[in-house]
């Protein structure tokens, strides 16, 4: 029986037992990962998973139950458990119902037959290429961890308002973390990645780049505390945006007084160089689906346009509270999405790039630091936007080029200062998890080093 049929069954059962409204979310996944550990491939894992989560509403109170056993009996049991949970709840007057049925857009470039049918041996070949390239780059490099992963996911939503949706997608990704070791010195982990919906990943490039970064991190110096021009790479941007900017754009946080962006629609909050969309339909995007995890159509939402705040991210509940439309940002957590109730999450959080090459972005810097990764971004304050992260490793920008490596550098500030101080974006757009962005240059960033401020 297919996912939709189980979904229909759950919805019928819940309605027949007294639910006023109900929804079933179903997911089925198959993934395969080859893992690199300490310079060798030593493990392959495969996961096959499927399940269903039911939401049932009685008198504006809703309950949820899930099972990973897709049988008639267990699906029925889950529907009844959801009703039991709804009866234990309290009515929420803000509840306006599940999304209604609408025409769904098509997700483009998100399913590749070749990925779906990739043999395990082929994934091991890709991992082995990546590993060999990294290790032949330089004798001081150790490929500490890495992986090549392939997955196929199918999702379905059925609800009592007529939503009846199904979509599937494939993903491939490769990742390598390397360190370089010399007598008395170990570099921080330097990593590179590549991920696509199709088989376009380039494991050799990833292996070489991780190794190159690790070697260039040897011989790190201390930095003098002060104000610098900083160029942030995609991984650093993901850490900072995910923990200090994206939370403030979520409608639930805005409505609950947890966002500094409350009441700022139409207000200039960033450099006019900055434009950000949440693009749930980005072609080939890693988070592109035809509909969100409660069956609302995916869409492209303007969040910041030329520095001006234009909108927030909504699911149907928070949209209902304000009488606006959902932006299609309901999302269920991994690895078993059917076991979770939806929360608001960005899809492909896309920063509009410029036409300036990364080299030119760097060449205009007099006294600066290039920061590809940050550590500790999850300890940021998502309400105030204040962050204080370690940039390990980081490199000096000297004479407009990436120069000597640095150690023990902390970047501190607030996301709002950072957004206002953007002085340039590069053209090198790429996706890392939910962020699609180019390198971004920031002026007057506060860096705390192990050497005190002079003068």
């Amino acid at each position, binding site marked *: 029986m297919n996912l939709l049929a189980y979904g229909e069954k759950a919805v019928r059962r819940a309605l027949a037992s007294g639910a006023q409204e109900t929804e079933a979310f179903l997911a089925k996944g198959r993934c395969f990962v080859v893992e690199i550990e*300490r310079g*060798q*491939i*030593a*493990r*392959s*894992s*495969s*996961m096959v*998973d*499927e*399940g269903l*989560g039911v939401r049932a509403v009685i008198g504006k*109170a809703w*309950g*949820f*139950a*899930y*099972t*990973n056993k897709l049988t008639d009996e267990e699906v029925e049991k889950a529907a009844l458990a959801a009703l039991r*949970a709804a009866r*234990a*709840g*309290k009515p929420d007057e803000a509840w306006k119902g599940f999304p209604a049925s609408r025409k769904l857009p098509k997700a483009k470039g998100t399913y590749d037959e070749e990925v779906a049918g990739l043999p*395990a*041996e082929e994934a*091991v070949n890709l991992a*082995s290429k990546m590993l060999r390239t990294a290790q032949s780059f330089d004798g001081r490099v150790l490929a*500490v961890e890495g992986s090549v992963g392939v997955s196929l996911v199918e999702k379905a939503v059925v609800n009592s308002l007529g939503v009846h949706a199904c979509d599937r997608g494939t993903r491939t990704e490769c990742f390598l973390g390397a*360190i370089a*070791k010399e007598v008395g010195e*170990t*570099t*921080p*982990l330097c990593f590179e990645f590549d991920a696509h919906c199709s088989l376009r990943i380039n494991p050799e490039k990833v292996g070489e780049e991780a190794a190159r970064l690790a070697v260039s991190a040897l011989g790190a110096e201390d930095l003098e505390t002060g104000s610098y021009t900083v160029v942030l790479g995609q991984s650093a941007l993901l850490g900072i945006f995910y923990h200090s900017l994206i939370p403030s754009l979520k409608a639930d946080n805005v409505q*609950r*007084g*947890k966002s500094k962006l409350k009441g700022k629609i139409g207000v200039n909050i960033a450099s006019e160089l900055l434009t950000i969309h949440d693009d749930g339909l980005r072609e080939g995007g890693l988070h592109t689906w035809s509909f969100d995890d409660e069956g609302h159509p995916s869409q492209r939402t303007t969040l910041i346009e030329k520095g001006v705040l234009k909108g927030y991210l909504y699911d149907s509940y928070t949209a209902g509270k304000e009488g606006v439309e959902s932006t299609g940002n309901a999302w269920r957590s991994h690895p*078993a999405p059917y*076991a979770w*109730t939806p929360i608001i999450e960005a899809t492909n959080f896309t920063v509009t790039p410029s036409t300036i090459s990364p080299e030119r972005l760097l060449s205009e810097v007099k006294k600066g630091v290039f920061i590809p990764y940050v*550590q*500790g971004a999850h*300890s*940021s*304050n998502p*309400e*105030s936007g*204040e962050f*204080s*992260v*370690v940039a*390990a490793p980081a490199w000096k920008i000297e004479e407009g080029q990436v120069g000597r490596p640095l150690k*023990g550098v*902390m*970047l*501190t*500030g607030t996301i709002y200062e950072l957004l206002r101080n953007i002085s340039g974006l590069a053209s090198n757009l790429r996706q890392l998890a939910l962020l699609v962005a180019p390198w971004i240059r920031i002026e007057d960033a*506060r860096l*705390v080093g192990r050497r005190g401020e002079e003068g």
Partner: protein
Amino acid sequence: MEDILLYAVHVGEKLGADFVEVRGQELHKTSVTTKDGKPEHIREGFEEGLGIRVLARGAWGFLSLRKTDRESIREAAEKAYKLALTSSREIKEPVKLAEVKPVRDRVVKKPKLSPTDVSLEQKAELALSIDRDIFSLVPQVKSCTVNYLDVVGVNYYFSSEGARIQQDSLHVWLRVYATASEGEVFASASEEVGSTKGFETFERQVLEKVSSRVSRRIREQLKAELPKGGVYPAVLGSNVVGVFIHEAFGHLAEADLALAGSVTLDKMGKRIASEATSIFDDGTLPGAFGSFRYDDEGVPAQRTPLVEKGVVVGLMHSRETAGRLGVQPTGNARAESFRFTPIIRMRNTYLAPGDQSLEELLEPIRFGYYLKTLRGGQANLDGTFQVGIQEGYKVIRGEVCEPVRNLSMSGHTLQTLLKIEAVGKDFQLWPGRCGKGQTAFICDGGPSIRVGEAQLGGRG
């Protein structure tokens, strides 16, 4: 379940695998989320599944699946075996497991009050009661989210070496996260309760302590100043010490990361801190959130000394890393669920207490900081760590003065350990969840300590 597990082991053995293990799980979870006085989500779930891990020609193949019919199990075991062969193609250092005595045991949990005997209504009311306390204690509070979770289940471990373990599991957990604002200042505070005891964990005085801690932290942050970044002496409270020990030292003492190049392996048998410093990872503390009887390789949990009187004496091991280094496994191999392979995880990790009072720790500081509660932390293989601070104060001439906010501490683990000047006699364990690709329930903790130099990132 037992005959299915045995069948999977037999299929793997017949194919010629060197080692086969099958883990089975039956789980029942309930969770409640309340937001600002309303039970937003009440959830219940049932899960069942298997993880089959096969070692052949020195490499691993792993497969997890939901279905428990014989046909699917046979296919899965065959596929796991094939995955192992495929992975072994270019193996240079074949995996060799440390030997252990195969255990046959049945571990039964008998909590005073099982979460399965508590109604969903009572669980929602527990969360709502904390919400009410927080809103009534601090008028500036804008939002309060309470998450409650219990997981009750049975875990099975069967291996081709003859291990036959059936082990009850029970976890209860609760987290409060409140935010407040006044003018342009935003404050937030969170606190967790977690145990492997029953629902009786949530007694009134425990909940009152949670509410009062969260409200105090919010009040202090609202009037806090922005600190100046730089290098200062500091007293770290038990909560910060816990996360420092866990993040900055503990991860580096996980044998997989040690073998991957973390700084600890070279330091085995060497002094890395003062005599006052002893660090343990203990899976046997009754009721603690990171405790269990057997790990997910069937190895009994133990109290593992990592640092004794300043000297590195051990690492945390799986059977694989113990085999590689020729030592005994320590019972640290854990898997989030049947969906994952076991990897080395901490249990309850702590710095042992010393003999100083808080006053004695603060006394020699002319100007510095008292870092009382954290927001989170992270460490890198090279020993660089970062800990965000939720509650911190200035210390002037040995006295705790004005609160500061948005502070974070970073540094190098080994340099910081060497700078531990004094260790307090207070002691507490803090429950939490640790992410290393998979989530594990853990505790970390210790006493308060004084460090001569801490690199602080602030904004002044």
